[in-house]
């Protein structure tokens, strides 16, 4: 389980998070929604120690992450995988080498075992046969799939998705969501997804939290969020420009 307690984060004079509290149950698909620039990606980076909070705590099971450094932090990170917004694939490596990278660097597995695992993951994300290509030769959707294969290859307990479908057409959005759903059923990781895909994300998530002006304004099941009487939530999920949220 991941617990976030009273998390505050500012960059200079710009306050991003102001007292976020979350409890992400093990095995769930937990989705964080909210306007662009409200700090959703920042929150993900705080979960994994890429950023440090000004105030507050991040607990991964019994370990408080935000004050860890060095080897202790790496031990926690080894339990995580992350799919970045742009994929963050290594440009100079082929698809195969990108997916094999975490295994080569962090394990002592033989190359034959690594090859099997890489092929297995690439088949799971529907990309068998592109091993020799480089990231620049792939479409946006394919890059995200490769990034997903790389994030999954070390079998993490927690998988963080930073806007996994941004910039994709509706068909690819649904295919990525289906892929996350299928992989989640197969591998039983805890998924934390930052997304703008309303309403598609409601069919994937088991829990939804909405972040607004630095704090969580609503949490619940997709059905509860969709029927919420909170005007902030309703304006956001209906995509209306008029309402309490300023569309700037």
């Amino acid at each position: 389980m991941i617990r976030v307690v009273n998390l505050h984060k500012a960059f200079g004079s710009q306050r991003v998070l102001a007292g976020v509290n979350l409890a992400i149950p093990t095995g769930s698909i937990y989705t964080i929604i909210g306007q662009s620039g409200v700090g959703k990606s920042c929150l993900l980076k705080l979960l994994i120690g890429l950023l440090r909070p000004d105030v507050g705590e991040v607990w991964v099971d019994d370990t408080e992450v935000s004050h860890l450094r060095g080897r202790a932090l790496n031990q926690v990170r080894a339990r995580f995988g992350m799919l970045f917004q742009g994929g963050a694939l290594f440009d100079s490596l082929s698809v195969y080498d990108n997916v094999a990278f975490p295994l080569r660097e962090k394990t002592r597995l033989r190359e034959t075992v690594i090859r099997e695992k890489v092929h297995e993951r690439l088949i799971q994300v529907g990309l068998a046969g592109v091993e020799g290509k480089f990231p620049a030769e792939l479409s946006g959707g394919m890059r995200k799939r490769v990034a997903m294969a790389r994030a999954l290859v070390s079998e993490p307990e927690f998988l963080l998705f930073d806007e996994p479908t941004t910039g994709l057409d509706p068909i690819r959005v649904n295919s990525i969501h289906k892929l996350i759903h299928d992989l989640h059923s197969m591998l039983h990781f805890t998924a934390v997804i930052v997304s703008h895909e309303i309403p598609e994300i409601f069919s994937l998530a088991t829990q939804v939290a909405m972040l607004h002006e630095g704090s969580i304004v609503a949490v619940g099941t997709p059905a509860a969020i969709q029927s919420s009487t909170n005007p902030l939530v309703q304006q956001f999920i209906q995509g209306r420009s008029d309402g309490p949220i300023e569309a700037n």
Partner: protein
Amino acid sequence: MLTLARISAWITSRFLHETGKMGIFLASVLLHLFVPPLQLNQLIRRIDFIGARSLLLIIFTGAFTGMVVAFQGYTALRRFGGEAFLGPGVGLSLIRELGPVLSALMITGRAGSALTAELGIMRISEQIDALEVMALNPIKYLVGPILLAAIITFPLLNAVFVVVGIYGGYLVGVQLLGVSAGSYFTQMSSAVTLDDIWGGLYKSLSFGVIVAWVCCFKGFYAARGAEGVSHATTQAVVMSSVLILVWDYFLTSIL
């Protein structure tokens, strides 16, 4: 007056902040050099990039520098009837000064700028964050091999520059201007001491550290998209070049 004082205080604090950050970065890189495992694949890749791929440029610039020095030296020495000292003139100026400085400036332009851009793009496309998520230290994984490769390749490229330069000087001085081949090399070997050679190698080694340090630092902390990477690359080349010249003065005064 108060505004001027504020601006001055702001510049000082920015300068101290940046210098401190650079110092901590270098200390961290040096510290990680001694922590196993050695990133051998990365090291070989960087030696190839900084060293092998700069070889043609170094041979070309070394040859023409030696030729120009021979021309200028001959013109000056002939006024005093000292053409026989062309060999020592070319040798000493290349070994002690021009070889280390010019080869370092050339490598900064060719490899240093590319390294800053590469790291900068890795930073803005979150590839450095991805390394951290995989529990790999990006300073150890990316920067350490670059620093080590620069320490290995800069003195070697300097040696190539000097040798080619001496032969460039030979072509102009002996083959074109008629200085005796025997006096060119004999006078050179009696004038140049082992200390001169070591001095040149120390210089190029320290320039290697400067270039790797500055270029990696600027790339590693690049921000604000493509413009930020472009800005970081310009800053890295300018700062490395200026530091090479300033550090050269200090080393020359003590070596």
